[in-house]
């Protein structure tokens, strides 16, 4: 499967590295035709295994469903207008604060990736140089998106992607945490285990954490693309469930 990725001549621009990434992982056009994806995964917290179902649609709608003891809880559900979560104490849906919702709306055009067709979204990219990640040489690319709002103030929304110089695959993403007690700390996402799903290559191992700190692997069991989705799940349940 590694043959799918081909090393590309050096002295690339940021744009070439990004284009090459999409071409090598299934083709730019094929990524553009992706309508949705559904991921079944689990995380392990202190021995407790938590099964997740993550659904993302190309119009920005999304949800993460957590199933525990036969109960379903939802996190980060977005229907295009309202962002909501299940409160674990009451098991009722609650709307996220206005600022989080506004920031989520900005992400709505980031499917399948913020890098995809980044120019039309008004994002800028910059090749920062090479850096060793996981013992491997990578191109570091800075992506600047629309500013988000944090505690009433506009802040830069910058993501750094690290592309394996050999294969062109993204193996890490970094983003400064801009709110909460970890504000200022660099969040890190490690990507590996790329595998094919209907002609597109997805990382089946995603580990999220903070730079030089704790991290949490997401064990992905399956990814499906362009599947039928129960559209009723995204809307905020006004009466509560």
């Amino acid at each position, binding site marked *: 499967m*590694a043959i799918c990725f081909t090393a590309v001549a050096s002295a690339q621009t940021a744009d070439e590295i990004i284009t090459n990434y999409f071409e090598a992982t299934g083709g730019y056009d094929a990524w553009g035709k992706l309508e949705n994806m559904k991921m079944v995964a689990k995380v392990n917290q202190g021995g407790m295994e938590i099964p997740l179902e993550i659904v993302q649609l190309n119009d920005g709608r999304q949800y993460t469903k957590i199933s525990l*003891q*036969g109960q379903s809880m939802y996190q980060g559900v977005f229907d295009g207008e309202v962002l909501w979560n299940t409160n674990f104490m009451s098991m009722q849906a609650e709307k996220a604060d206005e600022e989080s919702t506004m920031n989520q709306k900005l992400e709505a055009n980031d499917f399948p990736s913020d890098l995809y067709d980044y120019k039309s979204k008004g994002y800028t990219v910059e090749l920062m140089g090479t850096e060793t990640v996981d013992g491997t040489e990578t191109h570091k690319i800075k992506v600047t998106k629309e500013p988000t709002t944090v505690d009433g103030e506009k802040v830069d929304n910058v993501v750094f992607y690290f592309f394996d110089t050999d*294969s062109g695959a993204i193996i890490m993403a970094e983003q400064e945490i801009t709110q909460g007690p970890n504000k200022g700390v660099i969040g890190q996402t490690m990507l*590996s*285990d790329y595998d094919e799903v209907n002609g597109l290559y997805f990382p*089946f191992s995603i580990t999220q954490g903070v730079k030089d700190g704790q991290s949490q692997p997401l064990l992905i069991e399956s990814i499906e693309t362009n599947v039928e989705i129960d559209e009723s799940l995204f809307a905020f349940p006004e009466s509560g469930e």
Partner: protein
Amino acid sequence: MKKLFGIALALLCAHLSEAQEEIVLNGKELFGDLQARQIGPALMSGRITDLEAHPTNSRVLYAGTAGGGVWKSSNGGASFTPIFDQHAQSIGAVAVDPSDPDKTIWVGTGEVWTRNSTSYGDGLYKSIDGGVNWKKIDVFDKSERISSIEINPNNSNEVYVGVLGALWGDSDVRGVYKTSDAGATWEKILYTDLKTGCSDLLMDPTDPNTLYAAMWEFRRTGWDFNSGGENSALYKSTDAGKSWNKIHNGFPEGKLGRFAVALAPSNTSILYAAVEAEKNADKGLYRSDDGGQSWTHLNKDFELVVRPFYFSRIVVDPKNPDIVAKGGFLGSISRDGGKTFRNLGQMHPDIHDILFDNKDSDRIYAATDGGVYRSWDGGTTFEIVANIPVSQFYHISIDDKEPYNIYGGLQDNGSWYGPSRSPGGIEARDWNVVGFGDGFRVEKHPTKDIIYTEMQGAQNVWRISTETKRTKTIQPLPKAGDPKLRFNWNAPMAISKVQPDRLYIGSQFVHKSEDMGDTWEIISPDLTTNDPKKQNAEKSGGLSVDNSGAENHTTIFTIAESPLDEKVIWAGTDDGNVQVTRDGGKSWTNTIANISGLPANTWCYHIEASVHNKGTAYAVFDGHTSGDMNTYVYKTSDFGSTWTSIGADNIKGVARNIQEDYVQPDLLYLGTEFGLYITINGGKNWNRFTNNMPATAVHFIDLSEKSHDLVLGTHGRGIIIIDDISPLRQINQLVLQENVHFFDTKSTIISEESNFGSTSTEMEFVGPNPNQSAKIIYYLKKRHTFGKMKMDVYDSEGNHMIDLSPGKSKGINVVTWNYRIKQPKIAKGNSLTFGGFTAPRVPAGKYKVVMTKGKETYETELELINDPKSPLTSADRIALHKTTMELYEMSEQLAYLVYRIDETIETAEKVVASGKSGKKVAQPILDDLNELKATLVVTTGQGNYVGTAEPELRGKITALFSKIASGFEKPSASEMENFTLLKTRFNDAKEEYEKIEEKKVAKMNKLMKETKLEPAVYKSFDEFIDN
């Protein structure tokens, strides 16, 4: 064909020879998942050198530190985060661009508070993304100390940099530099001479062409400090630095020292200057009300004249030109334009900078030798910021307890010890203070609960019993016939591995005690050069005499007794001797002449006597106090007859310490001014360790024999531990050639400790604990990016225990398993049952780990062992595990039973809906099953907190399961009685369901068959569990 074959063969040969080539990995390719653990402490913090505010956003401020880099607060100083870990950690100045304050930040490295122990910087850095990425500006590589950065508020491209420059030698990289193109090119616009640097630079914010520059003539050596000279002066430019005029109208004549200058932002014609002059009467605070054209002497209070080399910062309230504060021993503030002062509120002494909030002058921040302090009441009361672990250790040692303790002495913050792990994390309350003043060497008695600590110059050496809390001072005292004893500021102490009660202390002599310091014997002649030119410390200071003892020289600095032969003792001196005795001190040999490539009189900073060979020792030398920043690392294998350099060109920073590995003789750990370096081949190649390891000065290294942890005492980032370095011992060329190599790991003790967590408050620093899980450690030749890679654990009978997420990094990967299987599947109810989230432990034993990478599988084994200190018998453990797993099974059986009930209810509901005859057979089923179900799981209530209903059988089983599974006791009689009760209730419920199924459901099924309704299809138990 033949030709083709030939080519193929040639290619094959080329490939083979390539495969056998030596693999040399750099640090980032080798160390992989090995991570440093920064445990602080932060309760006493460390020296802060510079504070900088965001011009408009009061939430944002920066703190530059003496040895711990730059820290940023985004919450008004409640807490700080480090943002400069990859670069020199000694900070002179931090500046925020007033036109682009969220993004453009400049950092000038190299502290300007030029005490004896100050570190040094390596230039100027700029970030254009708020401190996430930094770019070094090359012109300033040799600047050593940058005092000021001034940015034109109307033009970000125009920046002025004040370079104080080299402290210990001549340098022409000094003075004021200017860029007009945002840092691309620079021009030196003010320069005095090789000895005089710019100690402060100001820009008038209302007229950026007006600049003030303070120039200071100064020099430090290992034995002297001089502040002041003919060339110290204050200059003003009104043409953006093209021309400069001395502005001394009103200042004293003669030699001058360091100036502290400030202008009032609310009225920029008002300036304040603290002046160091020849006469005491002329020293102190001057004020100008005409932009420096004339000066009036106002005040010479202690706080305004004390130690100008250490305290030269004046700050004026941004709104009121008459409120002026000055750094000092305690710091002081005037509210009458500098006429009178009162001390700032109580905080750690030695105030280096003060910052007023731009919007609210009641909010004041102070930079001290012991951290950042905040005041909410204009400086009357202060509180410390409790999460900046920039403590500056001179020395550390560890003991052999479990968990082991770390002992060490701190710059201006006494001596301490604390644990390597603690319930809830290593927090402030875990640290114990064991000495006053500046703390240096701290040694633990090898067998008794006794600690030896000292303060500067061995003025006091304490022997402390941690058991009886008794303390006695035991420093060697002169006896008849002894010359004056010369102790270094940081005097060496050493213990013996052979004689536990033995203690060594070094002056110019080696002092030895065999009774823990009650009796002392001098066992050497003067081992130093005894150069009288270097023995005038009491006159040190220049215009302000500074007799602190910090300049005591021609002293012994390091002592090491061979762990293999107590008669072999090494002593290294600050004036460059390396002496050895092989007869317990009767005769000494100076081996310094056998070291080539080392400049004469270079400070011997540390000698490490080998544990592998008594003739072997390592010595590191530090020439920075003569302006020599090279790294000197040497090894001898013949008692010093010959020495070989084992350093390398890629090592940056003067060497401070070296530690030999106890197992692999070619594995060495080197601490330099810019971090930690490791060699696995005796010094042929050195790798810098950067995983969560800042570029901070590593002053001392110790290695735990039991846990194989490498413990670093840093001079700026506290204690840093790399847990279990044993994989490094196993790396060799054969390993590096393998695609996957599992390292041998020690058995994991199943920890039986439990705790209720920490007591720290929200913003206090808490050092992380080591991970006590089982570890699977392996080397990957190449990062895994494509295709599945998984890891499964099996018990000795081949039963699957758990799947883990393997690391993918090239180099060393560490995967942890907390020796638990996943939690049981729990019956579906109307709320969550928290006991059901308990993941039970597996018993001690050997487990097989299978890693699948693409089509290949790789196997290793790990072993879990019970804590040998545990009071449990093996019968207790069997009972514990058996009951735990029976309850686990019972929970899952109950889940299955509830599943069957739910499925049957669903079917019955359909049948009821199908018509009258259906209702007749199915309604009784619904009635019975709903009634039964309500006894098994919660079917009412809402949520998981106050709305939840009373627990039913499910909650009771999981509660007992969790209670027993979480503990380390044989199930008690009470628990077993409860277990029997629950078992009976579960069996009864099951029987009842079976009865309903046998009779009523059978009848319903018959009807369904007749009416062609789909009967219920149940999953088997195994299918249900797996889904």
